[in-house]
Structures are given as structure tokens and as C-alpha cells.
């Protein structure tokens, strides 16, 4: 009787022993950081080159909401890149807000 009553608990203990959590390999975090850094850098480069290209006339044109598709898309990518840097910053506390600040400042400047 006691043996039968103990069996489920013993078996669950056995299951817990067999299905232990698995520690992720060290290089997984490194690879993820590299991948996210790549995404961030790509987005940052895109945002930067777009901002550099803008002339006064283009800035004027951007006051028209019909021309907002490109900056909004760039800011979205930039925002994703800044977020990606959070993961990168898990080991190296890199400043991740620069790109976001730039994007937000850009949006503020573009508002009429």
C-alpha cells in the first residue's frame, strides 16, 4: 500500500532527474550577440546614409505627410536596431540609445 502510494511521487522524481534543464553552450550567447550586432549595424548604416543624403529641399518636402513613409520605415528599423543592442549589451554594456535618440530627434525635427 505504502509502496503503491509512493510510486507516483518516485516516478515524478525520476522524471525530474531525467529531464533536467540543459545549460545553453557558452558560444550560443556570443553568436546571438554577433547576429544582433549585425542587424543593428545594418540598420544604423541605412539610417545614417539616408540622413546624410537629405538636402534642405528634401527636408522641406518631408513636411508633407505623404513623404513620411521612408523616414518612418527607417526609424522603425532604427528602433529595432537599438533594441537589438540590448542583447548585445548583456555582456558589453554598449550605449544602445544613440540610434534611437537620433531617430526620435529626426522625427521631432520633421514635425511641422
Amino acid at each position: 500500500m505504502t509502496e503503491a502510494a509512493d510510486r507516483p511521487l518516485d516516478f515524478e522524481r525520476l522524471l525530474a532527474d531525467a529531464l533536467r534543464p540543459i545549460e545553453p553552450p557558452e558560444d550560443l550567447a556570443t553568436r546571438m550577440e554577433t547576429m544582433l550586432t549585425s542587424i543593428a549595424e545594418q540598420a544604423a548604416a541605412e539610417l545614417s546614409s539616408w540622413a546624410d543624403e537629405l538636402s534642405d529641399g528634401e527636408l522641406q518636402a518631408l513636411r508633407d505627410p505623404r513623404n513620411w513613409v521612408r523616414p518612418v520605415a527607417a526609424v522603425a528599423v532604427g528602433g529595432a536596431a537599438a533594441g537589438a543592442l540590448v542583447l548585445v549589451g548583456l555582456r558589453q554594456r554598449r550605449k544602445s540609445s544613440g540610434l534611437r535618440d537620433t531617430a526620435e530627434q529626426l522625427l521631432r525635427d520633421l514635425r511641422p
Partner: protein
Amino acid sequence: MTADEEEGGAPTPAEAPAESKAELDRAFEELYRTHLRDVYSYSYYRVGNHHDAEDLTEQAFLQAYRHFERARRESNGRPLRPWLIRIAHNLASNYHRDRSRRPEAALDAVEPPSHPHGTERVVEGREELRDVIERLQELPDDRREALIMRFALGMSNREIARALGRTDGATKVLIHRAIKQLEELMHPETVDD
């Protein structure tokens, strides 16, 4: 945000107060730190090898990042682990569907833990643990997944229910049946019924 709002009429994304990017970043960092091992463990037990488990874990976190803001807004403060594991679950299902294969019979590099017993007991114990892992592969998918969530990740019935998209009651029954079936597979001579 209250439970009433969740049930009755949670604000739509457009109505909800926007969370700052910095807050979202911090929250995602916390999610990543807290649950990297959960996602990796789940992926590993689903695909059966470290290489694909790493790929799945990467994909899961990238996908989680992409949808994090919305998930956080719609979670109404509930833990996001079930959502994260659901992402890993779906990715693992796609993995098996794409490759039309089940997890490999032998999970690589899972060494049963040592216990403070005598040498003979340790050897017996390790064999038994290997047997559990092998028999686990014989269970139907949903039962196996529920056991992985329960025992490898330590998830509650409610969390498992959310991850699998089932009711709490159905999940409780699922886990009970999974344990019973696995025990029958391992010890057919000792199980009642």
C-alpha cells in the same frame, strides 16, 4: 491593468499607453536573461541535438523580439514565459514538419546527474534515466511536450496550458495521462489497470 480589463475590454494597442523604448529594451533583456535556459532546454528536448537546439533558440528570441512590444501590451502583466515557449514550440513543430522526422532516439550529451548513493545505485540510476528519455520519445507529441514543460522547465499547469493553447483542466488531464503512459512503458508489470 486589471483582470477585468483583460476579460472585458483590454485597450487596443492604439489605446494603450505607449511604453518607452528604453522600458521595452530593459524588459526584453530581462526576458532573455531569465529564460534563455528554458528556451534552450525546451528546444533541445524537442529536436534531440545541440546544433538544432541552438538554431531554434536563436530563432525563438529573434521572433520574440519582433513581437515583444505587442505581446507585452497584451499580456496585461502576466508572465511571458508561456508565450516564449509557445514560440519555441511552434518553431520546433515547423522543424519536424519540414524535415518529417521525430527527435532522434538518443539525445546527445545528456549525462544523467550523479546522486549521493552507492556506486551500484548510481549505475542503475543512470540507466533508468536514459530509459526515461528513450521512452519519452514514444509518447504522443502533446504528452511529451507537456512533460518537457513540466519537468525540464518547471512550468505550472497554468503556464503549460497557455503555452499549448489549452484549458487548465485539459492540461492537468494531459499531464496525468502522460505520466501514467510513460510509467506503463517503463514498468508494464507494476502498473495497475
